[in-house]
């Protein structure tokens, strides 16, 4: 199971890097989304894919699934929601202001010599 997850995470990172390196702002945003998905899956996998053990600690149970990775993922997901929302708005504004979403056309170093 961990092996499959490793491949899935790897594919997600690969797609994310490809998208982030592209010129269009929209693809870049999608890329950051995939990147954070990969990271979240990685946390889940790193906590150990337990199988059948119960998720909570009750009296008399000694073998339980680790709850911490889920708490960490929840936090990370919420944060990446917020950041993605901000990026979408900010990049849309950039698109409006510059009239293009092509990074190549946005180059400019007008102030330095």
């Amino acid at each position: 199971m961990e092996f499959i997850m490793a491949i899935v995470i790897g594919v997600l990172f690969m797609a994310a890097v490809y998208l982030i390196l592209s010129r269009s702002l929209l693809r870049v945003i999608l890329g950051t989304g995939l990147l954070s998905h990969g990271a979240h899956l990685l946390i889940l996998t790193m906590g150990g894919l337990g199988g059948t053990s119960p998720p909570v600690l009750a009296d008399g149970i000694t073998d339980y699934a680790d709850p911490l990775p889920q708490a960490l993922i929840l936090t990370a997901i919420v944060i990446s929601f917020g950041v993605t929302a901000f990026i979408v708005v900010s990049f849309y504004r950039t698109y409006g202001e510059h009239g293009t979403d092509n990074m190549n056309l946005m180059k400019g170093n007008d102030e330095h010599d």
Partner: protein
Amino acid sequence: MINLLLLPIILPFFFAIILLFFKEKIVVQRALTLIGLALSLVSSFILMAKVKADGVQAITLGSWPAPFGITMVSDMLSVLLVTTSLVITFFVVWYSFASIGHERERHYYYPAVLFMLTGINGAFTTGDIFNMFVFFEVLLMASYVLIVLGGEKKQLRESIKYVLVNVISSALFVITIALLYAVIGTVNMADIAVKVAEVGQPGILTVIAILFLLVFGIKGAIFPLYFWLPGSYAAPPMPVLALFGALLTKVGLYAITRTYTLFFIHNLGVTHELLLILSVLTIIAGCIGALAYFDLKQIMIYNIVIAVGVILFGVAQMNDNGMTGAMYYLVHDMVIKGALFLLIGIIIAITGTSNLRKMGGLMTTHAPLGWMYLIAAFGLAGIPPLSGFAGKLLITKGAFEAGNAWGSIIMLVSSLIVLLSVIRIFVYAFWGEPKLQKSNKKMHYGTLMAPAVLLVILSVAYGVGTEWLVPYMTDASDVLLNPSTYIDAVLKE
């Protein structure tokens, strides 16, 4: 158990929330921001006295036993950085009154500053590696707002780089924490230190150490990872640049220092040797940049990169003198960078350009500004008895003791280049024939000068009062060099 160490984090947060209700009332916003910062400052001074008297302070939220709850830890290093951040933000906010403009003030400039401060102070104080990620996000989110606030074409364009670099480095941070959790099984920093010592730092942990260096190196702008910094920092208006330059990279530096003195101290030959080499390369790269530009902002921004190198070079020595020197230099650099950015902000406001070739002769019209700039410039280069001297002296001493004399020679040569780069600003801007100056009637010269002058005076006092600060700095470096102090404070209550 002490709640005091939460105050410098929570107070700015509460005041930021209150400020959101006073969007149109600029005077109320200004007053509340200053009151909030002053209260936080008082609490952090009380905390510093407490840490000085009783040693490392720790609290685990919700009264869970230590490795399970989220721990906040205040040792001398973190409380020093928290206090310095608050002092600098106080002066920068004061400076903003006259320079940031009503439009930005009405669009949540002050709340963003306070939220960023919440994140910064939290990152300095937290004792939990995942919580550090959360506080990093808090400060980054606020800094995204600050960098685009105003919506100028240039700001929007540069913010893309800034946001993307930080989003990627945050994702890398999460990945690194996940890997560390898989190996060690805990996210409490004191507990990680214990567990790493138990397993003796095998190869996988050294790899994770390098990953941490990569993550924090992007935020702290060390050598191969600093390329995003000069462009993005030049975009926002001056007070924001001053805050970013004085505070943000220091958070990355703090995180490197913390992880490399607490967790990964069992394989110094790999991790700290790499840190040493990268820090020297950072100094060299910063020097090249500082000499290459004829733009006020760019010269100062590359000076940030040089300072990052110098501080990490001190940390990489891992001995008493080097570490104490790094602590001295860290606080010095925050104060002096704040002061210098405010001063060049005034120069840019007077001349209406940041291009050195287009300015000149300010000495005849603005002599006090010239003298203040000269003092701050000498302080930055570390001319005794000004504030940069003690730190560099101790770092050099530490490097000689650790057998890294070659690095300290490069560092000392870099001081000359720093001096050259800032004196060049002085020569071009203040000497020579007065050039055509844009008469800016709306400029409040006095309001701009007051905070800048006070920061310069503070940095001079820091340099002259070096002897008096020795116990604080040695306390800070003692905890870093003896992680057991830190671990005991958290785990044995």
